[in-house]
């Protein structure tokens, strides 16, 4: 018994050996699972960039393409996205400035037509 406050203490002997094993092994497995994901996703971009670099090299026939051209940081992408958004949302400003008046021809509809109103005496 390890005393904590006065008579209150923790009796670690109450933990069965199996319990401690489960706790330690369990935590290690969680670590292992996530570390595996870390490894995979640290290596994946490298493979993707290697392929992109290869494709670009074939297309441009330049030997060296700087990393900054392939790998865009998030804030740069955000800035480009914002610029594009502004550009497309402001497109209406570049209109022809020619004001035209078009005659709008209304198609006839009996809806609310005066000839079918209640104030018209029905003809026999």
């Amino acid at each position, binding site marked *: 018994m390890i005393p904590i406050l006065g008579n209150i203490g923790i009796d670690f002997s*109450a933990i069965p050996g199996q319990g401690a094993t489960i706790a*330690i092994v*369990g*935590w290690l497995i*969680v670590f292992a699972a*996530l570390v595996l994901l870390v490894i995979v*996703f640290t290596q*994946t971009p490298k493979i993707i960039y290697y392929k992109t670099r290869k494709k670009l090299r074939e297309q441009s026939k330049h030997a060296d393409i700087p990393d900054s051209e392939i*790998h865009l940081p*998030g804030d740069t992408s955000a800035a480009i996205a914002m610029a594009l958004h502004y550009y497309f949302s402001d497109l209406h400003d570049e209109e022809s400035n020619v004001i035209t008046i078009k005659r709008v021809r209304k198609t006839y509809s009996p809806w609310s037509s005066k000839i079918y109103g209640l104030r018209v005496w029905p003809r026999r």
Partner: protein
Amino acid sequence: MKKFWLVIGTFVLLFSGIFSAHADDFNKILTKGKWVNKSDGYKISADNDRTIERYKTFSFNADQTFVLDSIKTKFRGEWNVIDNCIYLEFNNQKLKPKIANLTDDQLIVDGEVFKNHSGAVAGLLNFYEYTGIYNATPGHLLMIVVGIFFIFLAIRYNYEPLLLIPIGFGIIIGNIPFFQAEGFNLQLGIYEEGSVMNYLYFGVRQGIYPPLIFLGIGAMTDFSSLISNPRLMILGAAAQIGIFLTFLGALVLGFTPAEAGAIGIIGGADGPTAIFLSSKLAPHLIGPIAIAAYSYMALVPIIQPPFMRLIISKKERKIRMKPPRSVSKLEKIMFPIVGLLLTAYISPSSLPLLGMLFFGNLLKESTVTRRLAETARNSLIDIVTILLGLTVGASTQADVFLTPQSLMIFGLGALSFVVATCGGLFFARLMNVFLKGDNKINPLIGAAGVSAVPDSARVVQHEGLKADPTNHLLMHAMAPNVSGVIGSAVGAGILLSFLM
């Protein structure tokens, strides 16, 4: 001689008149109104030892039949008066005949005293017995106060309102007292078979709702911060120490290994995971575990900051992190598939949760199933949240919920949140020892590893802004936050496979 027979005849007539008058009075008294008894000792259910006072009513009819109304069940029979004793014989052969005595306007049957009341009063007593006022206990009132407090927290302080409002109202619903008795089912309470609440609770008991919630979470979660900086995923694993230390703590407090596992998962700070695991390992503890998990999740903005300030120095809190790189679509699509394969192969028991989480995420990231993703992250998760919150709240029926075990679970739950937060923070500091230059991380984000999406990430952002008003950590904190969800689901799977 003639005179003698005349005298005898007169006496016979006189006595027979007296006797028949006495029997008529007896019948009149017996058949007038109803005979009501109130006695203690009625168990409220088979698996609950609490007893309660109940009314029992005898009504006698002139045609020598009677009805005994006990625990809202009617037992019929016939009565006969022999030597001033009333013999009661039940139609149901399983019930033994009884002898009753009528003295001073009281009917005594097997030592139980029945008082005479008019039919109207007996009806009112019957109605009163059905009311919540009659069946209320201090426990019910206490739980209703707790429910109202949850609603107050949600509305006044905006603490997880989507959860606390349904749970708080569910607590009120679950603690409206009603007539309960062993062997009697009014089909009202959440624990009574056939009741509407019981049907809705089926999804909690069988662990159906949590995977559906995970589907929605997957469809609304953006894993790009995690993919752009995968190292931060380890923080999500580090914070899961809360699960395993709480598991040990529960064992110390005398819980069985299965119960300890279910309690330990509170440290995962993930309500659906906690419900899922407890429904498998300790179904009788779902109520307290779910309430503890959700209440502490809502209280993350109160629990975490003191420990964040205690463990992380002011200088460290100001560390600026490198902006995350942009993540390609291919990586985003790969993540749910690879993530599922890696984690589920290690811990297949967590498949219902992880399968749904990653499936939901693929619906979102594939960009070709927009409609399905929209449904999963809006309508579906909303419906399931309503059902889950309401039924989990209603499962806190005072007579089932208010036990010393629940108090211990609440204590362990608080401890697990603290341990998980500290685990994440210390590990983040440890990581910084090995990281150089602008790769260093702000250790505050370690606290987001406890899961509790997205509250703990929001707390990190808030604390980061307090230290440096221009340092936004939300994006970085989301990485350990979502990896915490994966980590706690894997942890739940491991506990399940060890303890089931």
